[in-house]
């Protein structure tokens, strides 16, 4: 075996899927939420970088399904199933949804982080995928990396260091 480990990077409002030995990562999650869905036995993991809670917020143009919590989670799960993941053994870990700036504004958009988290959880519950770990809220940006082999989610924040979930 001379497999080299690749780290697949997922951009903002984007999604991707990896298998062992590769890792999957997304950088600079603020109010956005990183959703990892995985099937440990198949060593398969997908990651979506969700930006907005609901696709009904889209005002025009072609819908980018990876951008919204409701469409992204559904699409990620169905692509995983296409690649051999079994819906009953899929689990999820999420991180992000921070409130980067404190405002006293009444604008609902300012609460986007918590709303993203709620929407992702609702969608996972609807698809009957159990959420086994989460690191959400607060006011720090996060970079996350997931290893489909160990199924550990590595979370790095600027001031609070690194931890595994």
């Amino acid at each position: 075996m001379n497999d080299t480990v690749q780290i697949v990077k997922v951009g903002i409002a984007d999604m991707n899927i990896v298998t062992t030995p590769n890792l999957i990562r997304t950088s600079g999650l603020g109010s956005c939420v990183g959703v990892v869905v995985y099937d440990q036995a198949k060593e398969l993991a997908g990651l979506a970088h969700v930006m907005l809670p609901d696709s009904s917020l889209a005002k025009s143009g072609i819908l980018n399904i990876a951008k919204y919590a409701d469409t992204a989670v559904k699409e990620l799960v169905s692509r995983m199933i296409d690649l051999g993941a079994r819906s009953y053994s899929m689990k999820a870990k999420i991180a992000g949804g921070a409130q980067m700036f404190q405002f006293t504004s009444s604008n609902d958009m300012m609460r986007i982080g918590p709303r993203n988290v709620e929407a992702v959880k609702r969608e996972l519950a609807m698809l009957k995928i159990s959420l086994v770990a989460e690191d959400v809220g607060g006011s720090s940006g996060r970079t996350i990396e997931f290893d489909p082999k160990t199924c550990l989610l590595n979370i790095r924040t600027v001031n609070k260091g690194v931890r595994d979930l």
Partner: protein
Amino acid sequence: MSFLDKFSTVHLDVLKEVGNIGAGHAATSLSTLLNKKIDMRVPKVRVVSFDEMMDMAGGPENIVASVFLRIEGDAPGSMFFVLSIEQANTFIKQMIDDVHFSFENPPYNELAMSALQELGNILSGSYLSSLSDFTNLDLYPSVPALSIDMVGAIISFGLIELSQVSDYAIVIDTALDDDDTHSSESVKGHFFLLPDPDSFETIFKALGVAEDE
């Protein structure tokens, strides 16, 4: 017609002038504040994907000090003044007269945070008031918020309004430089102005450019 197809080179030139005037006044304020000569680069107006926008500020994981404010009034939008950590350190050292100060380790000095917030307030205030005079639009800044964190986490917050209509952002980016670029004391900063989708029409109309020009 998608959001971006509405923009011609004339429109982008108008936006460049918007950046020019705003940042020109901000540079003057900074110069007065630091008692130094400040240079301004020619503004760049670019249509970029969200990922490219992060790269413009040094990549999503780059750690920066950023002052963010919402623009309210006739043409709402978001505005960022972004400084690298080193530059924020340099600035604060000059402003509070403490050579040992650093933003490397929290908790941060309260006086320093307040000074940095004030810097953002003064600069973005002068940017915005000149813009308001030039366009004859009523524009009010919100109270500025300060954050020291990853670029991706900070900038994405300003993209939320825009992300509802587009996967691309129109960024008016102006960089400020002080004169002695070779010294470690130099101050460089970026202004990012991100008008909300509906504000472009208002801005163009105020400046006498037809939407379909």
